[in-house]
């Protein structure tokens, strides 16, 4: 290789970071594919419906966290009300199918469109301004959506909940409620597809522009990158991910919607998932979704105390591992890789 032919000056020894990063990114893609492969086998290992149920939730959270990761890790913006888009997706799907008898797929599409329009209306004016106006605006959206779900009882069923949501159909086949296994595959297929879409998106030319504007918005603007437009698009896509997760939630085994999962509480949990896993990484949402869903389940008896745990987690993470768990693991692996040849006394100088 060219590097070998160069004289042994300082430069020749400096490792090619970007090459290493690119190699790692390629490896990561393969690992992710392998991971989804393993997830396809997991149900054979567990006979318990409860665990399957939790794994379905992890899949939904993975979709949500992946969307939010695009916004936070690449566009450098924060949404404090992402559960609202999850809720719009879920309730639009639920109402259209249960009350109006729509086909679930058509309802899903309508829910997706509605979510994107709302996100666009929120993002367009706020993302033109410098600073964290989006965070404020999404906080507001989160509150409004929560209130609407609770108060507009004729439409949403209010705190009593929305019932009678039909099951999802797949090529004429009903994914029925007593068959969690089918729904598990359905949700994880969506999670895999949306993760692959995300990976391709961030590796594309617009993805590179997005990363550039994260590094220096000013320089990107000077080069003619429509930075505000890119941020709006990233936000709308992240809301679309949440909407899809919402639809999948609505048709999951309970086929019942109540306001609780779509409140501020969930928005914070999603935020912690992304930060914990590592913003701007492929593995981040996976690690975050698993960890936080499991914490949620463990703390379920203590109801509202998990928000305290999330708060503490956020603080500790920011101090100890600002890059998230997946980056910390990555550096650890690099470190070990460096040690192995050294311990063996290998040929590396």
């Amino acid at each position, binding site marked *: 290789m060219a590097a070998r032919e160069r004289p042994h000056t300082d430069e020749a020894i400096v490792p090619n*970071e*970007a090459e290493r990063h690119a190699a790692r990114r390629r490896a990561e893609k393969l690992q992710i594919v392998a991971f989804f492969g393993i997830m396809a086998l997991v149900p054979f290992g567990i006979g318990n419906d409860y665990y399957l149920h939790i794994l379905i939730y992890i899949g939904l959270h993975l979709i949500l966290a992946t969307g939010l990761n695009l916004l936070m890790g690449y566009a450098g913006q924060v949404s404090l009300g992402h559960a609202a888009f999850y809720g719009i997706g879920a309730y639009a799907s639920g109402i259209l199918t249960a009350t109006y008898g729509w086909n679930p797929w058509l309802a899903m599409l309508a829910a997706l469109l509605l979510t994107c329009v709302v996100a666009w209306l929120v993002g367009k004016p706020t993302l033109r301004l410098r600073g964290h106006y989006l965070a404020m605006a999404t906080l507001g959206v989160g509150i409004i959506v929560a209130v609407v779900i609770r108060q507009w009882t004729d439409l949403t069923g209010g705190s009593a909940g929305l019932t009678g949501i039909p099951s999802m159909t797949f090529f004429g086949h009903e994914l029925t409620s007593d068959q969690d296994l089918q729904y598990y595959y359905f949700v994880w297929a969506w999670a895999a597809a949306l993760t692959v879409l995300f990976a391709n998106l961030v590796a594309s030319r617009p993805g590179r522009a997005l*990363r*550039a504007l994260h*590094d*220096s918005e000013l*320089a990107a603007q000077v080069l*003619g*990158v429509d930075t505000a437009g890119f941020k709006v698009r990233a936000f709308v896509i992240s809301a679309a991910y949440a909407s899809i997760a919402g639809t999948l939630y609505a048709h999951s085994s309970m086929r019942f919607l109540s306001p609780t999962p779509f409140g501020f509480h969930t928005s914070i949990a999603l935020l912690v998932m992304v930060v914990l896993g590592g913003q701007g990484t492929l593995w981040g949402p996976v690690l975050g979704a698993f960890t936080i869903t499991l914490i949620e389940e463990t703390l379920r008896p203590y109801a509202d105390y998990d928000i305290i745990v999330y708060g503490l987690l956020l603080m500790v993470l920011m101090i100890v591992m600002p890059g998230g768990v997946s980056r910390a693991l990555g550096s650890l692996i690099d470190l070990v890789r460096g040690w192995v040849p050294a311990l063996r006394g290998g040929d590396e100088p």
Partner: protein
Amino acid sequence: MLRLTSVDASYGRVRALRRISLHVDDGEIVTLIGANGAGKTTTLAVISGLMPAASGTITFGEQTVTNWGPSRLVRAGICHVPEGRQVFGSLSVADNLQLGAYSTGLSRQEIRALMREQFERFPRLEERRTQLAGSLSGGEQQMLALARGLMSRPKLLMLDEPSLGLAPIIAHQVMAEVQKLREEGLTVLLVEQNARAALRIADRGYVIETGRIVLEGSARDLLDNPEVQRAYLGKGYREIWE
């Protein structure tokens, strides 16, 4: 080539530029000097479309370009290399250069040829083409910022304090590079706090104070001007003191 006539600009209520008029002719190096907060960066921002002009007109070549967007101005041939280098730290040197051609609509081959041109001009960048830009030294980052700007094939190059924070010898190399670019036919508008270095390579200069142009002239005249010497060249403290 470039002409500003009575341009005003403000940040909200704060007026940053008051009736700025200046021009840069084909093939010139013109420098804009002034103290911190005088309005140098703001002037460049208005020219490159980052900030609107509240009033006044800007012409570039034959066209009136007042309040055009940045990407259209890049295509017209204006390149702004911002203050503080602002390289894309998490991207490789090659990716940074690629983004330099973002608005040009050039084909892949053309971009590759342009990139080769930059690598010939800055061999150090070629050695580091796969390295992350954030890990380059300050001088290398400035070279990269310059090369990234040149990827848009500009007619007018606007540099905002390119020698800021660099060791004197590196700053000197940057200035030499600017001179070389002019010889190749580029027109340069150079913003500098290091007024002496800028005036040495410039043809003409403007002095800006609190958003107004207070002095203009040939570089020679400005170097000899006692006011400029006192305020910007650090000369003659003793004479005033005694």
